[in-house]
């Protein structure tokens, strides 16, 4: 019975049990899927990163954001719930990706907030997926040089624009690391106009500031000077002529200084020529002889140093072992013979060395005549001075017509018109001067010790020996006058530029004897004591006294003299109107004479 009831009862219950029914359907609007914004907060559709950084996302919409999943190139970089303390974001590690383009997929999962049952129990979600492009650029910022343009008279500094997205600003630095002259945040603003630079040397450096830091460009230098020329004027003046510099539009005023003193001002740029007094001594190049200050409209200033040297030309005579004692010019061969302490050198008309010979002699003098160079040398074996000719090309010593000794005071004339007599009684040691006349193949020597002094005029009509002036007619010497020779006079020379005068030269002065009138005029040279080189130049009509400390040039016509300071035993030679120093100067003597005080 129990079992029957137990079996039947559930059946009865199942069949006859009330089953509740009914629905309470509420019309809930479907979830809102419009008006939802999923974007990048700081970018549009492309993310530009130049260093590892967090990319911030922006979400707006009725559904409330719960989760953000981000993958870059199908590799998840972020997944899970969002932070409550800030906007949603994901991190880009640039080292993981390197420079290039990558796809970014952002999926936002949000609660629909529809109010439905599923929403109430938090199982109704919606997802929004959006794709972006990730542009990674970790290439180094290029070092941008700047370019200069002065075509409009101002200094226009420009550079190529930096177009990458990580651009922050440009900084333009001038002349030093702490002198920023301009800055801009506009990547296309790539020009700066310098209204201060006039002349000189300046440098600019562009610094490109990006989000990853400041990147300094290479320095660019600009050198701009005015062309300055110095011309010598009569009356001991100099004329400075300068051109408008490249950045002339920046010049408001011009100031000219001579040896530190202001000598000229000009507002604007009307004057390009300034005349000043020539106060410069003969000698080395003076680097700060002039300063031309180009003053802009501002605190800066451009100063141009203008060097100046007395002389027409600076040469490199290529004499680098010792100083020049004498230079002779051979007009026939257009050669210079330069005697230094140890060497005898031949230079061409451009002062290029053609031959060189070292002589182991104490001293020798040289003289040039036509195609010959004559040298008197001391022969240490014999203890006597030896006169010889020297091949002016090879500098090989040749015997002059068989003589090796010259006796003074007898006339020794080696030309076809006169008898050449030589003796062996040539006193020594002695100091001799060899002088050759350009139109005569003649040699004259003078012994300082014996007092013998001889000379022959260029036209061959007069002869002076010891203290007597002779008239030469054929082979006859007719005494004209007796002219005592002072003990310190050791050079006699007939003026090639004035056949009427015979010069007797000592280290203290010159006596000019008129052949026609027997008149003597004396020209003194002060401070020439100790001179050991005397040289007469018929072209410049000057006698050069060269000592160890100074040299003096004496004009035999006017008696005017000027002193040339010699530094470090600078020796001067006078030849063919040019003053040549062992300091490699060649100067036009006429020009130098104009400086005589």
């Amino acid at each position, binding site marked *: 019975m129990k079992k029957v009831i137990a079996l039947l009862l559930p059946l009865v219950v199942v069949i006859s049990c009330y089953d509740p029914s009914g629905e309470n359907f509420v019309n809930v609007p479907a979830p809102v899927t419009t008006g939802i914004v999923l974007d990048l907060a700081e970018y549009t559709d492309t993310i530009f990163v130049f260093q590892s950084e967090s990319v911030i996302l922006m979400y707006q919409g009725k559904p409330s954001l719960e989760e953000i999943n981000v993958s870059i190139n199908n590799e998840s970089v972020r997944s899970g719930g969002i932070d409550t303390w800030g906007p949603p974001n994901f991190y880009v590690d640039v080292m993981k990706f390197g420079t290039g383009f990558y796809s970014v997929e952002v999926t936002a999962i949000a609660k629909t907030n529809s109010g439905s049952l599923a929403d*109430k129990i938090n199982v109704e979600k919606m997802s929004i997926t959006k794709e972006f492009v990730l542009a990674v650029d970790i290439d180094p910022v290029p070092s941008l040089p700047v370019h200069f343009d002065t075509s409009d008279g101002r200094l226009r500094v420009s550079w190529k624009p930096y177009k990458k997205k990580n651009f922050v600003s440009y900084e333009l630095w001038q002349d030093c690391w702490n002198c920023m002259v301009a800055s801009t945040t506009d990547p296309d603003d790539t020009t700066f106009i310098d209204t201060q630079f006039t002349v000189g040397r300046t440098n600019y450096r562009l610094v490109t500031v990006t989000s990853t830091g400041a990147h300094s460009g290479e320095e660019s230098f600009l050198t701009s000077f005015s062309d300055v020329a110095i011309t010598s004027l009569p009356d001991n003046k100099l004329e400075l002529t300068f051109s408008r510099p490249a950045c002339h539009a920046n010049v408001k005023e011009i100031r000219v200084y001579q040896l530190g003193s202001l000598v000229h001002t000009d507002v604007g740029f009307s004057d390009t020529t300034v005349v000043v007094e020539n106060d410069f001594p003969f000698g080395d190049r003076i680097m700060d002889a002039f300063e031309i200050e180009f003053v802009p409209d501002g605190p800066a200033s451009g100063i141009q140093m203008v060097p100046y040297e007395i002389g027409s030309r600076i040469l490199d005579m290529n004499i680098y072992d010792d100083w020049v004692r004498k230079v002779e010019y051979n007009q026939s061969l257009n050669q210079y013979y330069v005697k230094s302490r140890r060497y005898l050198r031949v230079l061409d008309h451009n002062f290029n060395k053609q031959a060189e010979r070292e002589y182991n002699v104490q001293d020798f003098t040289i003289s040039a005549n036509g195609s010959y160079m004559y040298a008197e040398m001391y022969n240490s074996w014999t203890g006597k001075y030896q006169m010889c000719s020297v091949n002016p090309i090879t500098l090989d010593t040749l015997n002059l017509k068989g003589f090796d000794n010259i006796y003074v005071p007898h006339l020794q004339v080696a030309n076809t018109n006169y008898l050449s007599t030589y003796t062996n009684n040539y006193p020594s040691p002695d100091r001799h001067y060899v002088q050759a006349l350009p139109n005569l193949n003649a040699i004259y020597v003078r012994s300082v010790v014996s007092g013998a002094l001889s000379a022959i005029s260029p036209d061959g009509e007069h002869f002076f020996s010891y203290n007597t002036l002779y008239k030469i007619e054929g082979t006859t010497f007719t005494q004209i006058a007796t002219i005592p020779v002072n003990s310190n006079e050791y050079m006699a020379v007939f003026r090639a530029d004035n056949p009427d005068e015979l010069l007797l030269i000592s280290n203290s002065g010159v006596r000019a004897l008129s052949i026609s009138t027997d008149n003597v005029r004396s020209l003194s040279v002060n401070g020439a004591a100790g001179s050991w080189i005397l040289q007469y130049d018929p072209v410049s009509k000057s006698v050069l006294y060269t000592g160890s400390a100074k040299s003096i040039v004496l004009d035999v016509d006017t008696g005017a003299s000027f002193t040339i300071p010699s530094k470090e035993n600078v020796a001067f030679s006078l030849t063919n109107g040019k003053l040549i120093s062992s300091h490699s100067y060649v100067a036009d003597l006429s020009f130098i004479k104009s400086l005589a005080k």
Partner: protein
Amino acid sequence: MKFIQLSVLVLLAGSHLMAQEITLSVGYGTYKMSDLKALNDEIQLSSDIDLPLKTVDDFPGYVAFGGSFTWQLTDRFALGSEVNFNSTGSRVSYDDYSGSLHFEQKIHAISFGVLPSFKLVDGASVIVEGQPRAGITASSLSVKESINVGGTFASDALDFTSINIYLEPGLRIVRYFPFGNNKIGLGLRVGYHFTLAKSKLFLKDDDTMHLLVAGEPAHADWTGVRGDFLLSLRLR
């Protein structure tokens, strides 16, 4: 069950002396179920989900089934026993496009009672009897919460039981028909069921716990109108 067994034994003991009648009934009952209705209200108010829940089925009346066996002890008095089955239920519901949330109560009861029957009208073919029934009702309540969202179904149910005593006075009218030698009769019965001595609805898995509504123990209150169609069969 023992009571049923005892009743059957007593009846069978004297059965050879008395007229016997079996009656099957199909009827309808209404049920008060005030506590369980209050439970529905409480569910709506205290739901964790902020949704407009609504009671869409609130313990309506429903078909009832029963049966009885009586002995005619005297001409006017019969005594027997009966068994009845009643069920009803309720549903608190929320539905929208995304799914549904239902909170259902299904309750059924099997009643076992004593059936005294007092003949009021003893006609040739129609008999009217007064029947003050009494017995016990064994109730079984299933409380179930189900949610169906997006095709995913989840539910949770708790079962409760209780034993109550009832009293159901009623009136029985039966007409016996000539075919079958007046042994087959069709009739009606109407009555009013009172659930007395309501006991708590104890959790089936743990009878130390019982259902509370508003902090008070809930009861299965089957009080209500009863009405049945009868099919009687006289055995003797």
